[in-house]
């Protein structure tokens, strides 16, 4: 990836800052949410420019799929009155001057620290690339996620589990008034769902040697699930298979960790000969789990028994 600064970068940064601010300061919350969705779109372009296509894939899938869906769904449930905010939601008042000053102070501190850092430095790139041969994959980001820093990723899946438990603990939400079935929405689902499943499988497989992986695939699958829920409302927490799918990723990851601790070199230390297969197994289980968890986060806990 070319590292020099292009005209594109200046356009992108200006748009990012403007959209970021408008997404926070627009009086109309619907407008703010749309601006936030577009902001996410442009952030994924920024990841591309910074040479992070793995991150760009995840941002694109989550930003264009789950994040926007969650925000719009919440806006709809708040109703017109609940979704109304004051005219100048962030206007500077005496009470907010302290917050503004603190934010400004943070900016000065951060700018000073960033400017104090060297323009270029070795970082952890060289060690990450040196160990790549023993990691089982050739994409260094996948190697970092699943091998070098496996603890992080295991605990991340744990965080996702806690989030979905949190949503399920809350009392049930009344189902939204059912909109009439729309044939075009069913068509959208019929065309896009197989394609998202195929693309998620492709990303999972390609993640071993090129940008992609379990998280990107899962976010894509989750967006397919969101579409499904829109066309034919799901009821997720009730069924046993859903609960099994939700814990599958964490269980497989933990099981592999325990197995390597007992029989091998230590917790989550994969033997190089099997590392590739082990990573693919964990990623496949994690992808299914994360996708189901994300859809469950969107579906929430609908009221039981009512239509």
């Amino acid at each position: 990836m070319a590292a020099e600064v292009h005209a594109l970068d200046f356009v992108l940064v200006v748009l990012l800052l403007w959209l970021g601010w408008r997404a926070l300061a627009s009086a109309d919350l619907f407008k703010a949410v749309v601006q936030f969705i577009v902001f996410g779109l442009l952030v994924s372009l920024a990841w591309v420019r910074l040479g992070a296509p793995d991150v760009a894939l995840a941002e694109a899938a989550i930003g264009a799929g789950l994040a926007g869906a969650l925000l719009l769904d919440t806006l709809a449930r708040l109703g017109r009155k609940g979704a109304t905010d004051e005219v100048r939601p962030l206007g500077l008042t005496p009470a907010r001057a302290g917050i503004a000053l603190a934010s400004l102070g943070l900016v000065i501190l951060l700018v000073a620290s960033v400017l104090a850092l060297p323009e270029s430095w070795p970082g952890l790139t060289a060690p990450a690339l040196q160990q790549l041969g023993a990691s089982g994959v050739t994409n260094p980001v996948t190697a970092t996620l699943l091998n070098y820093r496996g603890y992080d990723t295991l605990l991340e899946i744990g965080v996702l589990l806690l989030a979905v438990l949190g949503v399920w603990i809350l009392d049930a939400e009344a189902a939204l008034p059912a909109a009439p079935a729309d044939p075009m929405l069913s068509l959208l689902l019929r065309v896009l769902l197989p394609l998202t499943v195929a693309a998620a499988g492709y990303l999972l497989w390609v993640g071993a040697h090129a940008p992609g992986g379990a998280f990107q695939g899962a976010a894509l699958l989750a967006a397919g699930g969101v579409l499904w829920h829109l066309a034919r409302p799901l009821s997720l927490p009730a069924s046993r298979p859903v609960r099994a799918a939700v814990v599958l990723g964490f269980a497989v990851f933990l099981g592999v960790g325990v197995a390597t601790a007992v029989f091998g070199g230590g917790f989550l230390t994969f033997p190089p000969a099997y590392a590739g297969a082990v990573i693919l197994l964990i990623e496949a289980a994690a992808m299914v789990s994360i996708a189901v968890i994300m859809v469950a986060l969107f579906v929430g806990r609908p009221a039981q028994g009512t239509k």
Partner: protein
Amino acid sequence: MTGEDVRSALSLTLIGAGIAFFLAGSIGVLRLPDLLSRLHALTKADNLGLGLVVLGLTLQADDAFQVVRLLLVWLLVLFASSVACYLVAHSATHANGEPTPTVGPDNPSMDKRDGR
């Protein structure tokens, strides 16, 4: 002037034409008076703008897999944006069970329709 140069020039011409359609679509979305005519402008950018850019880029693709992905991206955007535009237009025209297009704030007819 080699064949390579001709191909590059043709590719760039197509991309330029695509950008022209993007510009036309954006200006249409910006300037046209109501939602439905803006939808009309939008589909030009999606279908033709992106289509011409994709066509121009396929002339430069390294291998068949890239060509397949480029065309797939175009077809998907074509499909997704057609359906999304249909859904929005449908929602706009049938919000109250009657086909009244959503209009700008300077048209008095909108005041007759209430909230949700």
